[in-house]
């Protein structure tokens, strides 16, 4: 069966520090991968998606970037965190277009 892993589960980082969040998927190949951010008590905002290795599309301008160095690995990064980057970051995968997204358990990032 397919599984998705995100780490770390929680992270507290000072303003101006770098960020690296990792997501890996097991049990599937060539998944579409997504990064979402969820502000407290709010819905989900799509940040990045990837349809293949090295292929990244950004949905909103921001202080973050994403990379996909391997088929089942998706990384969310920042060179210098801002206070506004705080939130709950969710990785998701999709086996084929038009099928449900499956989410990881998220990383709660607090920028202080």
């Amino acid at each position, binding site marked *: 069966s397919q599984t998705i892993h*995100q780490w770390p589960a929680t992270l507290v980082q000072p303003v101006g520090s770098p960020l690296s969040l990792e997501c890996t998927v097991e049990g599937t190949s060539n998944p*579409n991968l*997504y990064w979402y951010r969820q502000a407290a*008590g*709010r*819905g*989900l905002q*799509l940040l990045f*998606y990837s*349809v293949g290795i090295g292929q990244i*599309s950004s949905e909103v301008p921001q202080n973050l970037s994403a990379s996909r160095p391997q088929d089942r690995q998706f990384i969310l990064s920042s060179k210098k965190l801002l206070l506004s980057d705080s939130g709950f970051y*969710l990785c*998701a995968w*999709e086996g084929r*277009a*038009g*099928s*449900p*997204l*499956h*989410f*990881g*358990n*998220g990383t*709660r990032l607090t920028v202080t």
Partner: protein
Amino acid sequence: GESVGLHLPTLSVQEGDNSIINCAYSNSASDYFIWYKQESGKGPQFIIDIRSNMDKRQGQRVTVLLNKTVKHLSLQIAATQPGDSAVYFCAENWSRAGNMLTFGGGTRLMVKP
């Protein structure tokens, strides 16, 4: 612009009663809809989906109804249990490539014992 929203931010029901969570969407071109359940501190969990060529789909204790005429989506939970307490999101697919879901703001379901 096009958006997906929910009518009620919080729904409180008695254990054993049926729950109905509503969602309005405005993109008439959307052809795929999903309901997710999110428990505190966890990622959204897929519950049920429906495509626009259907108006009803049933799962285990859950039913999704789609009314394309009024662009309305609902999730019905039968015999609501305490474990159903969570935030429920609807999402629509306005895909350009892949699964570009637009999520509603969520409804919190609280089940009273």
